[in-house]
């Protein structure tokens, strides 16, 4: 913890994300680290297996940019809007090339991360009964209770990404990350991974973290790099920091319908910029101000000093 893990997004991605890796950028509607996705696009990683419960706009951008050969997921869409057109082109028409898919249900994906995080060879769930999902995914297999009660469950295999990237409201230089609001499956995905990048709105003093240890979701022990990158989740949101940019989600539907438009967007907003800071600047301060919520404070609790 005494060692700082602070890095730039460029260096974190350059050092820790490799061609051919299995990568999970997690965050369920909340805390989706678009800036990390953009950096992976910018550094032109290839042949990634991308994992995410909800492939959202960020994976449409990454897959549209050609970084991935395979997608592991449980719900594929632009939430509240509709389809992810770049991904659909690849799945439906192999345009410009095929995309392998491996799909689960939400709880199946979550349990795969839990199994990965817990070093378990499988995880049992009560789902998939009489569904066609196991028919198209042979990794989902039935298992009978050993207690003779006749109960059948399905089991899913562990998911152990090479790299998991998550975003937090704040972290200290050692990578201890605190998150509030929707927690998704970030903790499980981080513990399951070989390498972890924590991106955060603010790097704070260790004393801030230690004042409220129950708020720590990911401990520095599993973290390889900490990147301070404000507004990194746009157009997704960060509870207490900025709102979801719904207009962008709607706009993406238009952008992604056409490969040429998508390429132009990538050129303007990813390739032609050297960092997320430039993206933030290009959008303009007024844009960000409009996404900022009024404060709603949590109140404090007393841990007590026991000296």
């Amino acid at each position, binding site marked *: 913890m005494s060692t700082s893990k602070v890095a730039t997004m460029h260096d974190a991605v350059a050092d820790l994300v490799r061609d051919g890796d299995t990568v999970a950028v997690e965050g369920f*509607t*909340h805390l989706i680290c678009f800036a990390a996705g953009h950096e992976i696009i910018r550094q032109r990683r290839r042949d990634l297996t991308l994992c995410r419960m909800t492939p959202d706009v960020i994976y449409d951008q990454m897959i549209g940019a050609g970084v991935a050969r395979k997608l592991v997921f449980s*719900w594929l869409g632009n939430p509240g809007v509709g389809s992810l057109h770049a991904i659909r082109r690849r799945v439906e028409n192999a345009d410009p090339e095929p995309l392998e898919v491996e799909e689960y*249900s939400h709880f199946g994906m979550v349990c795969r991360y839990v199994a990965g995080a817990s070093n378990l060879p499988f995880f049992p769930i009560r789902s998939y009964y009489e*569904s066609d999902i196991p028919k198209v995914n042979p990794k989902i297999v039935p298992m009978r209770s050993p207690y003779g009660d006749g109960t059948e469950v399905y089991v899913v295999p562990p998911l152990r990404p090479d790299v998991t990237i998550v975003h937090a409201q704040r972290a200290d230089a050692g990578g201890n990350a605190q998150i509030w609001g929707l927690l998704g499956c970030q903790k499980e995905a981080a513990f399951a991974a070989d390498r972890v990048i924590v991106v955060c709105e603010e790097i704070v003093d260790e004393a801030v973290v230690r004042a409220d240890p129950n708020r720590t979701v990911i401990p520095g022990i599993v973290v390889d790099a900490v990147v301070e990158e404000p507004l990194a989740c746009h157009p997704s949101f960060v*509870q207490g920091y900025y709102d979801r940019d719904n207009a962008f989600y709607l706009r993406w539907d238009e952008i992604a319908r056409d490969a040429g438009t998508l390429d132009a967007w990538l050129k303007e907003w990813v390739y032609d910029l050297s960092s997320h800071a430039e993206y933030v600047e290009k959008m303009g301060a007024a844009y960000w101000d409009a996404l900022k*919520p009024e404060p709603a404070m949590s109140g404090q609790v007393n841990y007590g000093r026991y000296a």
Partner: protein
Amino acid sequence: MSAEAAADLGYSQAELMIAASARQLAGERNCFVGIGLPNIVCNLAQRTVAPDLQLVYESGVFGARPERLPLSIGDPTLVSGSTAVTSMFELFAFYLQAGLIDVAFLGAAQIDRFGNINTTVIGDYAKPKVRLPGSGGACEIAINARKVFVIMRQGQRSFVDTIHFRTSPGHSGDSEHDRNRGWWGSGPTSVVTDLGTYFFDEEAGEMTLATLHPGVTLDQVRENMGWEPRVAADLGETPSPSEEELRLIREELDPGGVYTR
């Protein structure tokens, strides 16, 4: 029923569907809320027939009190002021799988007469004509929620004789089998469409037309589904939304008319 016809009645199709669904939530407690119409349905029920209704979102929120209309299942307005926020593992394991969810809403791209639901692909799985979102939580919701409500528009492409992929299981058509499956769920319990409302016959496990919306004929229903429907012996008319229901929808729940116009 055309949109104009509905407008003539003083409310929209969506408003009628919302009111009809909300009334079915009378007395319910813990409800897995979807986004869009189901969200408005639940909020309306909470203000009318189900004051103890707790709104639970698969994103991990329990007891939400949204100050605005949430635009996604993970809108930050669902978190602020809620009773509890939990990891998705705990939400699916301790709430849903444990049987604490009384009612859940599911959408469908295709549904068959037994309430089997497809949200995965149109066409062949390996080479789909249309790649749909997939299960999300729907598969385990269908299996673990005690009741499942479906709200959707009906038509020849969505109410089909044979779904292309069974994402979420419904009734099997064999009530003996269904009773012994050992899950909390037993297939959808209610379907509300733009034409009428349906329940599922307990023995046959088959979708059964309960009411026709005002101005809708049985022939219109038949024209908009891929099988010959069972019809309740006491087929009635769906009650129109009350003044109070319309006021709540228009003034409090969807003042912008995003989902209801």
